[in-house]
């Protein structure tokens, strides 16, 4: 028998090492290929035609002019496009009928020999409509609002504990405030793109997606194919932030076009069309009511949401859900209402629910701290629950207090003069703010394969997706730790639906879900190797695993990551401009598996939160029914100059109730709480409480002026 390849003792290759991402060299040399960067021979180019009415029907599509242009090979419409079977996502029923549910809905697709010709052809397609009256504006009093049974994530739409009304009425100190978050757009830097190719009855697609297993499954359903006849590759993906979580119109259109024309077809969505085509964070109007005693302990908490969805699909941003587990309160009401409007279908955007919900809740907690004259860090500590309030389950680990303490220490929170508007630096007013963050721990079944090769190496196969998290690297680390071999002996194959199917990169559960399957496969491989005598066969030894059972078992524990975000802002009293000077986040998210890439994810989330706080937001134009701000000149995301010092830290958290790695997700918690921390800091700087994001000049300057004139 060969010597035990896995000697006992402490792991020689511990998780957490700051390894450089494996595909880094390809990315900095420009050789990493994204979905639209494959150009098969005879490749044609598609360009979509978007509806220009907000609601109605297509009465005619005149493609004569388009087809007469040189190099144009087809125009697909609802009259000639391939028929699709229904799937769970009606937003993918493209070109199947004449209905226009919102402006920007795709009504035709031009296909041509070149990008230039395709764009010109799309512009030359003449579509006639029977327009109908449309309604695109959400208000908290909209007559169409109803209470959905469940909201995104499968949570109940409404939860009541105790008697909120009585407790609130009796509370010595109360706060009743309404906060709004506008529609927000993911805008990953890589537009949604696909290159699709039918050859010999097989469909091959390079897709910009967060999970090609799901894309494969949905394409199979839509085109009534065997999933085995479809390969979807998402090797490198230029960000998604939720908007590439499930298949989006581009991949379905590309597949229709290649089936229709018999040629490979490439389709990349124009940036301006993304807000209508790929999902958005739905706007929310959020009423928060807090009742507390003079000691700051909450006795009543209500968080009520009004939001919109489209007429195509019900998606309810679960913004009231975090209020069910953040703070102790014997009396609680958390509820959602939604109205279907003639708007594009909302979807996931980084921390759906938590990001907007915690803006409102954490702003409200700050307002309560002001009312009570209690330090906002202290007030949060006083409301720390022993068990998850809504379920009474024990937390698997909850280190919010640790994050607040360490953050306060590192940030230099104390001594802090709580008075607003007293720290001046020339024309600037300065202030600091804090907010808590949380994100649930999810895990989904995945499968993986581990192989020991005859040359002494190891090969991991799992359909994980790297959307920028460094999945290849961290999975190699997980495998190396499980196999107790050096990480450079482990090869990792991800990003293709031909690999063992796995969870998409979303819900901050990618690494936990894939890693668990990888770990399990590696442990099975170790067992096989132990039992194996002599040299390995030429094909090596393979072990496969899936985590259906583990994922289905669930947990008796309430499992969430926590964090605390601190921000210092300056407000220009002359111009009203607000800028963040520095931010610091401290997180408790289980074991951090790669400190280098983890830090980047935390900081990235906080940066998106900075955008949500200061500049991001679009409006539905009541006159036309579309988002007014559709490109990156009108919809501002943070630029380099907006982002000064941002630091992310974490506290060591040993949680045995998670997964073999002991990790919680880290992709989304960075955005949670950040907007509130900034808004709270703005209040501390100026005494101005802005409850509707973003914190733009127009909301601040008039109040600065009024305050000055009032004082003068």
């Amino acid at each position, binding site marked *: 028998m060969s010597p035990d390849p896995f000697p006992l003792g402490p792991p020689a290759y511990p998780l957490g090492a700051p390894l450089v991402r494996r595909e880094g060299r390809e990315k900095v040399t420009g050789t990493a290929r994204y979905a639209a960067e494959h150009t098969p021979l005879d490749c044609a180019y598609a360009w979509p035609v978007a509806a220009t009415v907000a609601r109605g029907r297509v009465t005619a599509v005149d493609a004569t002019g388009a087809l007469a242009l040189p190099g144009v090979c087809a125009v697909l419409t609802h009259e000639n496009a391939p028929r699709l079977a229904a799937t769970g996502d009606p937003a993918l029923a493209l070109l199947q009928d004449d209905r226009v549910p919102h402006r920007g809905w795709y009504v035709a697709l031009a296909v041509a020999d070149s990008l230039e010709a395709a764009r010109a052809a799309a512009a030359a397609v003449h579509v006639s409509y029977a327009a109908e009256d449309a309604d695109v504006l959400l208000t908290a009093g909209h007559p169409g609002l109803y209470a959905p049974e469940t909201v995104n994530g499968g949570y109940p739409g409404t939860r009541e504990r105790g008697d909120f009304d009585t407790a609130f009425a009796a509370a010595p100190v109360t706060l009743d405030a309404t906060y709004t978050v506008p529609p927000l757009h993911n805008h990953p830097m890589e537009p949604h793109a696909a290159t699709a190719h039918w050859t010999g009855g097989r469909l091959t697609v390079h897709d910009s997606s967060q999970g090609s297993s799901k894309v494969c499954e949905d394409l199979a359903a839509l085109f009534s194919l065997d999933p085995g006849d479809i390969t979807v590759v998402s090797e490198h993906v230029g*960000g998604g932030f939720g908007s590439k979580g499930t298949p989006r119109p581009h991949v379905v259109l590309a597949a229709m076009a290649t089936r229709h024309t018999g040629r490979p077809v490439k389709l990349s969505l124009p940036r301006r069309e993304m807000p209508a085509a790929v999902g958005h964070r739905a706007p929310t109007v959020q009423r928060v009511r807090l009742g507390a005693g003079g000691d700051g302990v909450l006795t009543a908490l209500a968080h009520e949401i009004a939001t919109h969805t489209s007429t195509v699909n019900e998606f309810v941003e679960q913004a009231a859900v975090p209020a069910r587990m953040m703070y102790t309160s014997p009396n609680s009401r958390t509820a959602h209402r939604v109205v279907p409007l003639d708007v594009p279908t909302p979807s996931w955007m980084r921390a759906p629910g938590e990001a907007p919900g915690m803006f409102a809740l954490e702003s409200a907690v700050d307002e309560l701290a002001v009312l009570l004259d209690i330090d906002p860090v202290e007030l949060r500590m006083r409301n720390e629950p022993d068990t998850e309030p809504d379920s009474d389950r024990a937390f698997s680990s909850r280190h919010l207090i640790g994050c607040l303490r360490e953050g306060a220490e590192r940030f230099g929170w104390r001594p802090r003069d709580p008075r607003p508007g007293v720290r001046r630096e020339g024309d600037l007013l300065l202030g600091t703010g804090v907010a808590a963050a949380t994100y649930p721990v999810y895990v989904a079944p995945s499968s993986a394969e581990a192989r020991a090769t005859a040359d002494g190496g190891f090969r991991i196969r799992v359909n994980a997706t790297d959307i920028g998290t460094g999945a290849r690297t961290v999975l190699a680390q997980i495998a190396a730790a499980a196999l107790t071999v050096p990480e450079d002996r482990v090869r990792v194959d991800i990003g293709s639906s031909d690999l063992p199917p796995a969870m998409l990169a979303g819900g901050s559960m990618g690494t936990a879900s894939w890693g668990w399957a990888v770990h399990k496969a590696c442990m099975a491989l170790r067992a096989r190797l132990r039992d194996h005598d002599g040299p390995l066969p030429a094909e090596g030894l393979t072990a496969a695993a899936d985590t259906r059972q583990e994922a289905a078992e669930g947990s008796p524990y309430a499992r969430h990551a926590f964090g605390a975000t601190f921000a210092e802002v300056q407000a220009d009293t002359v111009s009203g401009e607000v800028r963040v000077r520095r931010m610091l986040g401290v997180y408790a998210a289980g074991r951090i598996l790669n400190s280098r890439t983890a*830090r980047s994810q935390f900081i990235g989330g906080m940066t998106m939160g900075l955008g949500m706080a200061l500049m991001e937001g679009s409006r539905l134009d009541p006159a036309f029914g579309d988002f007014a701000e559709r490109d990156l000149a009108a919809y501002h995301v943070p630029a*380099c100059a907006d982002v000064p010092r941002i630091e992310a830290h974490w506290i060591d958290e040993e949680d045995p109730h998670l997964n073999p790695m002991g990790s919680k997700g880290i992709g989304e918690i960075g955005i949670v709480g950040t907007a509130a921390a900034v808004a709270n800091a703005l209040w501390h700087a100026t005494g101005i409480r802005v409850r509707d994001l973003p914190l733009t000049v127009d909301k601040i300057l008039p109040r600065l002026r009024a305050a000055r004139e009032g004082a003068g």
Partner: protein
Amino acid sequence: MEPTRYPADGGTVPATEQRSELVLHLNGRAHTLTVDHRTTVLDLLREQVGLTGAKKGCDHGQCGACTVLVDGRRANSCLLLAVAQDGRRITTVEGLADGERLHPLQEAFLERDAFQCGYCTPGQLCSAAGVLAEAADGFPSHATPATADPAAPVALTAEEIRERMSGNLCRCGAYPRIIEAVADAAAHHGGTARPGGAAEHQEATP
């Protein structure tokens, strides 16, 4: 002064007048190409020449992912009509490294983890290469003090780098790392940078 209107037929241009031949020097190699006048440098690179390093993020000069160097200066290749660049030298991210030896900026981006999804990275790198040259040549930015000597190189403080790199959006939020990486490369580039510019971002790994 009545505005001229197009003829009712839309006034098409004869096919022979819709294309031109031109020479572009791409990463040091001359290419003779016949292009549709509508073709941008970005689409030419990506769809016809097979250089897919330069990225299409917005196609309207609003994100910087398509940044390349034209005669040594950074530009948004999505807004450059290829036909108008006849005879110019264009450097893309594929042309930054010296064979297998990475450009100091590429090394710094790797070392600092100055990217996540990587889609904006080629544009960030080409832009940063332009920034190093511009600062060395004394080009001011919005962050340069008005009192700075117009003849002197500009020291690349963190504030200078932030402002100068603001034409390159990064949705993953790698900015703090990008600033560090550019400062590292600037220090390597010839001492025009103050390493302290990035020092404020350095943190120990916990």
